């Protein structure tokens, strides 16, 4: 639907460098990256609020690099919602229709079902300053959807909401994407949100797009160490391939030998990414398992987080495993408990140094 072809742009001391990406119709596209990476600028560039210094922006194959935002059929919702403080809720939501020339009463009638859908009908005559964060969020979303955009752009829409409101809002977004078939581009630094919503995603760091593709591929098979680190892979180990037997390689990392599936040749330097979910913890004598990698270690610390617990183990290198709190109790894990860790060879993602 919309594509960036080697787009670069400089804004003061900040710049986007040579960004290429494609957002297809019906995608729920996530742009993730650390604070200050340029995510919002990229979103605004999609909206047409910044004109690239070089490169092209294409909409359904037609170049729209110089097309102003009001003609792009996109709608933008900022992190701070940016409701017009001098207008009532009804005026905010119908703003897009009014500036397109629709009469006041007609526009109000048009947005009435939207107010109903987002549960804000009773707020119609209120000013934004009197609304809660969640209410403002819903008004902002209704205002954006009211103009029937081709693409909905969301700038960290969940970051200012409490957890309960976040869950409700995630449901709203999911419905907009699945039921309305809306193409959504969302800026976020939350891996969890990406897991829940994204179909495709891009990782941007220091103004450069470092990874892009299907969301599950980017999240589970990152292209580089910095992407792996940003998307929250818990165990990242640098090592060297010592042998490769038909795609099953042995990698020396941190004094241990890991078996992993990769084409990397002996002598090649690689980075191993192991999700904490994929590390199995066992106690007692060496258990029988099909996992190719088993290692003995000692529990260093346990951090409980809701129903799960992160268990940090010293196995020569420090590795993190995620268990349910019940498993921690059943295994009687405490700091100092000797354990055996096992990881399947197929659960280790190998990043080759040239990739």
């Amino acid at each position, binding site marked *: 639907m919309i594509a960036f072809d080697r787009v670069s742009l400089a804004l003061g001391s900040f710049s986007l460098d040579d960004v290429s990406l494609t957002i297809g119709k019906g995608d729920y596209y996530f742009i993730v990256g650390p604070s200050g990476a340029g995510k919002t600028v990229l979103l605004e560039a999609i909206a047409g609020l910044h004109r690239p210094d070089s490169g092209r922006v294409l909409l359904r194959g037609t170049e729209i690099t110089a097309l102003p935002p*009001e003609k792009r059929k996109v*709608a933008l919702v900022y992190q701070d919602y940016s409701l*017009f403080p001098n207008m009532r809720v009804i005026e905010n939501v119908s703003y897009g229709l009014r500036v397109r020339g629709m009469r006041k009463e007609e526009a109000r009638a048009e947005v009435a079902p939207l107010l109903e859908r987002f549960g804000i009908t009773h707020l119609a005559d209120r000013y934004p300053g009197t609304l809660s964060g969640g209410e403002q969020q819903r008004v902002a979303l209704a205002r954006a959807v009211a103009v029937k955009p081709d693409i909905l752009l969301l700038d960290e829409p969940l970051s200012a909401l409490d957890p309960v409101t976040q869950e409700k809002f995630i449901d709203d977004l999911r419905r907009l994407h699945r039921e309305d078939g809306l193409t959504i581009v969302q800026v976020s630094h939350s891996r969890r949100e990406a897991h829940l919503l994204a179909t495709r995603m891009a990782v941007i760091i220091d103004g450069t797009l470092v990874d892009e593709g299907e969301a599950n591929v980017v999240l589970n098979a990152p292209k580089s160490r910095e992407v792996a680190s940003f998307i929250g892979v818990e165990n990242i180990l640098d090592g060297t391939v010592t042998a490769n037997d038909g795609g099953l390689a042995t990698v020396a990392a941190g004094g241990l030998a890991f078996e992993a599936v990769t084409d990397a040749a002996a002598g090649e330097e690689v980075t191993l990414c192991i999700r904490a979910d994929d590390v199995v913890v066992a106690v007692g004598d060496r258990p029988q398992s099909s996992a190719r990698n088993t290692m003995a270690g000692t529990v260093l610390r346990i951090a409980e987080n809701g129903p799960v617990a992160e268990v940090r183990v010293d196995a020569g290198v420090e590795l993190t495993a995620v268990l349910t709190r019940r498993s921690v109790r059943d295994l009687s894990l405490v700091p100092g408990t000797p354990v055996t860790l096992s990881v399947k060879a197929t659960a280790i993602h190998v990043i080759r140094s040239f990739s």
Partner: protein
Amino acid sequence: MKTGTLSSDPLRGDGEAAPSWWRERGRRHIDWCTAGFCIMGGLLVGITVLALANMATAELADPVHLFKVAASSEVIGSILLTFGAGASAVLLLILFGTPLAYVLARSRPSRFKGVVESIVDIPLILPHTVAGLLVYLLFMRRGWLGAPLSEVGLAFEDALPGTIVAMLFVASPFYVNTMREGFEKVPVHLENVARTLGAGTFTTFRTVTLPLSLRHMYSGAVLAWGRAIGEFAGVIMIAYYPFIISTLIYYSFTTDGIHTSRSIAFTVILVSFGVFYLLRRMTRYLGRYDDRV
């Protein structure tokens, strides 16, 4: 805009309980810092009050003369002319200064922008006679602008347009800078959202930016008007006639002496004080919105 009363306001006269810092366990507790600031600020206000009291004492001792001067057609006409010329200058400022202020508020810092900002501020730093001379040289009958404009019947020397243009020149920084500050306070995100919702640049300005800057527009206009109607040196260089109030007082001082000129001045003080008080009161009701978003 958010407004509020400082809880430690020592000048509250609304009968509410004294703030906690003011009384402590039944004993008076004095915040020496605030008290010191009040005394220092009071000295400044005191000088103005003293000057007004001095003049008022003399004037109120002869109310018949005061009334005779205040009710004269020459004084009333001059006051109306001054206020009208000032209002005309402000209208021109709103028309031309508002776009300039917006451009200055939204453009990125650059050397060119710095030069333009300095040019806007020139009337602030120049002696008023120099400002008047600049206006005179440009708009006199042989001036770069005065010559072609006089050919189409618009004369500035000793004419109302000259008064207005001099007022416009000296008052412009007050309006432009206040308006620019107002535009800068409107988040760019609001404009961005309006653009993506389908509003063009001017529609965004008209429907979002300008309504949110109305208070600054009003304050800037009042400031500029006040500066304009008080101008003397700048105006007298190009338009000694028709008499605006400052030139009338000067004329009266040099021809009739202090008695009459003081009565005119006292009349002007009363009228101006009343008008500005009303204008300031009106700012409470204009362009207010709740910005907790």
